[in-house]
């Protein structure tokens, strides 16, 4: 048993950290945040050259054949840097495509997705959806709404999850172009500054060639679980960075005749945050290691991971702002942007209580033995 990374994994993480600290420092990121599009295609291109979008694609398709550990490492780095680019989203879409799509679809899209010239993002964060796929001859017609789809404004393709007739949860995955007829995107900005959109679909056509899997709710759940893992890993990166910023602040902010970090009550609260972060660290990589394993164990582990991630995001987010005092609630401080990212992470992909309920239903169903 070991929790060590391979040399390749360590190199990937280091290269990414170096690249982001050079090219996406907080001042640069702030300009990007307030730009029209809210993300930097230049940075995205640099990341694509580093191989980030290619990582999740199969090597037979021109990708790098990475898996859950690589996904977690990349997401962690992007969380630490508060990236605004569609990194997590495209990793999830690309890994889903690599694992679930038929050869034709993969061959058609993999090269441009790997190069970063085409961006695919998922439109779902749970198997519950009001998107309906109705069969018409050889094709489906998709209708309904997907709310607050992250990175939708910069997507070229959408990975859609829909219900087919008779199913109450999504059981079919499609990859359709962002400019498909019948698709209306209404943009918004999420609490963490990332751009999103509500997608309204009216009889959008999807052929068999656009279909990854159908009548397979378990596969849709797997893709959702990939998304949860990516978000939790982003959260890990963000809380780790938040604690580092807070410790720096406590050491340098002087009040009452010395650095406020000398106050024991504040010290103990930092330690409380650290303990939470160690636990999230553990669970991110336990979940990554189990992503392709036995489905029931994956499901309970992912549910547990999101419980821990939500609690850690809220606890650490609120504590680090409080420990920064007045400075913590100003927009100019990096910490307040981490806080907002953590608020979003607590909401996205379902709340702590929803995932605790899912875990409870699997492990401790009413009046039965575990």
């Amino acid at each position: 048993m070991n929790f060590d990374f391979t040399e390749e994994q360590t190199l990937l993480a280091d290269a990414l950290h170096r690249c982001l600290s050079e090219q996406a420092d907080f001042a640069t990121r702030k300009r990007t945040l307030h730009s029209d599009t809210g993300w930097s295609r230049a940075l995205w291109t640099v990341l694509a050259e580093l191989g980030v979008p290619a990582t999740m694609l199969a090597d037979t398709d021109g990708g790098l054949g990475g898996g859950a550990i690589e996904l977690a490492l990349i997401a962690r780095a992007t969380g630490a840097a508060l990236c605004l680019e569609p990194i997590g989203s495209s990793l999830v879409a690309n890994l889903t495509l690599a694992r679930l799509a038929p050869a034709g679809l993969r061959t058609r899209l993999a090269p441009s997705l790997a190069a970063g010239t085409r961006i695919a993002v998922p439109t779902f964060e749970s198997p519950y959806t009001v998107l309906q796929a109705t069969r018409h001859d050889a094709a489906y017609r998709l209708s309904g709404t997907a709310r607050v789809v992250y990175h939708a404004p910069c997507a070229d393709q959408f990975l859609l999850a829909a219900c087919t007739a008779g199913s109450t949860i999504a059981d079919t995955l499609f990859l359709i172009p962002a400019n498909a007829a019948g698709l209306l995107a209404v943009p918004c900005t999420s609490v963490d500054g990332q751009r999103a959109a509500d997608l309204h679909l009216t009889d959008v056509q999807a052929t068999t060639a656009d279909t990854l899997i159908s009548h397979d709710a378990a596969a849709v759940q797997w893709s959702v679980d990939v998304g949860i893992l990516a978000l939790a890993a982003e959260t890990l990166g963000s809380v780790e960075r938040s604690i580092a910023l807070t410790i720096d602040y406590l050491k340098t902010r002087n009040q009452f005749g010395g650095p406020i970090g000398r106050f024991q009550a504040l010290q103990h609260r930092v330690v409380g945050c650290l303990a939470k972060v160690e636990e999230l660290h553990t669970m991110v990589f336990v979940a990554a290691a189990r992503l392709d394993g036995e489905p029931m164990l994956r499901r309970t582990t992912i549910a547990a991971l999101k419980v821990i991630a939500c609690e850690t995001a809220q606890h650490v987010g609120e504590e680090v702002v409080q420990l920064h005092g007045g400075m913590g609630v100003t927009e100019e401080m990096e910490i307040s942007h981490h806080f907002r990212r953590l608020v979003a992470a607590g909401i996205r992909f379902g709340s702590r209580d929803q995932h605790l309920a899912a875990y409870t239903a699997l492990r401790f169903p009413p009046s039965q033995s575990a």
Partner: protein
Amino acid sequence: MNIELAPEDLAFRDHIRAFVAEQLPAAMAQRLLNGGKIEPSDIRTWQGILYKAGLGAIYWPAAFGGQDAAPVRQYLFELECALAGAPPQLSFGVRMLAPVLMRFGTTEQQRTFLPSILTGETWWCQGYSEPGAGSDLASLRTAAVLDGDHYVINGQKCWNTLGQYADWIFCLVRTDFTVKAQRGISLVLIDMKTPGITVRPTVLLDGTPEVNDIYFDNVRVPVSQRVGAENEGWTIAKFLLVHERTNIAGVPWSKRDFARLLGIAQAATRDGRPLMEDASFRAKLARLEIDLEVLEHTNLRMLSAAKPDMTTPSILKIRGSEVRQAISALTMEALGRQALPLVVGPGDAALTEDALTRGVTASYLNLRKLSIFGGSNEIQRNIVAQSMIGL
């Protein structure tokens, strides 16, 4: 012990309720109940209406235009106003400076400044904190040097709330650099139009410019605008901080926020089913209502106590901020994914028309300040510990 309201208090409450129902502009009320931003004009308008009805500051002494109202009545007044959707009264004038002027000001100062506080014509703000002297007021450095019958003021204030709209500021300044920290501080009143004053907004994490840095560059202030004796500002500041804390629990606002939470929860769904079918959510709602009930009665117990003690305001501040923050967090949770968009595009009818849910997330972000501003909860715990343990 009689924890129910006396008949006279009930009659007073009903009177206020009827007054508010009649006089509070309906559009303003609806907007504010739905989480709309409080505009300065809302505050000025409402203060004007209150003033005309003789309700500008009911707990002021009658001699200054108040009604000598007891704390419980003031609480009832604020509760009725809050629940009906009124904006808050601007505390800097009505609640903070006015008691100081009544206690320490000259008759001339009282005559000059109190009436326009009551009418809402003069917008006051506060100049206390400085960079490096946030919680630690004793180390403030903004200098006031005597030059004839004027002070010449140089320095910087920060965490100034809503000062961008202010006509006047009351300011702690250092008038003596030769003595120990708390001594040598004076309180002066400054017209914001005086040359040499620059106001620069600080954007908070919800994106609003609610607080400001204020720079003083050779600002000349007549000595007659000093309140109290020179170098006695610390005594006044302490008096003022205690006054600031009499309604520190913010129960009326929490009750209004909780009512909104209930409205949102009853309309919300989770995974396609009504949220109120979810037992764990209902238990959270119940637990929070209990917290609010306990806070309200603890507040009333302390308001109605014969002799106030020094620790309870701090405990009320801590719990009041925690409860209100918890309400905002649970409201956000009730909304689920709908809570994500902070800024919506002009075309998004679905989101903008959904008025009940407007600004929920922005409010959660904004209310982080409650446990920090006005003496952080850590400072409050120090105060209580000092009083109880004294080490």
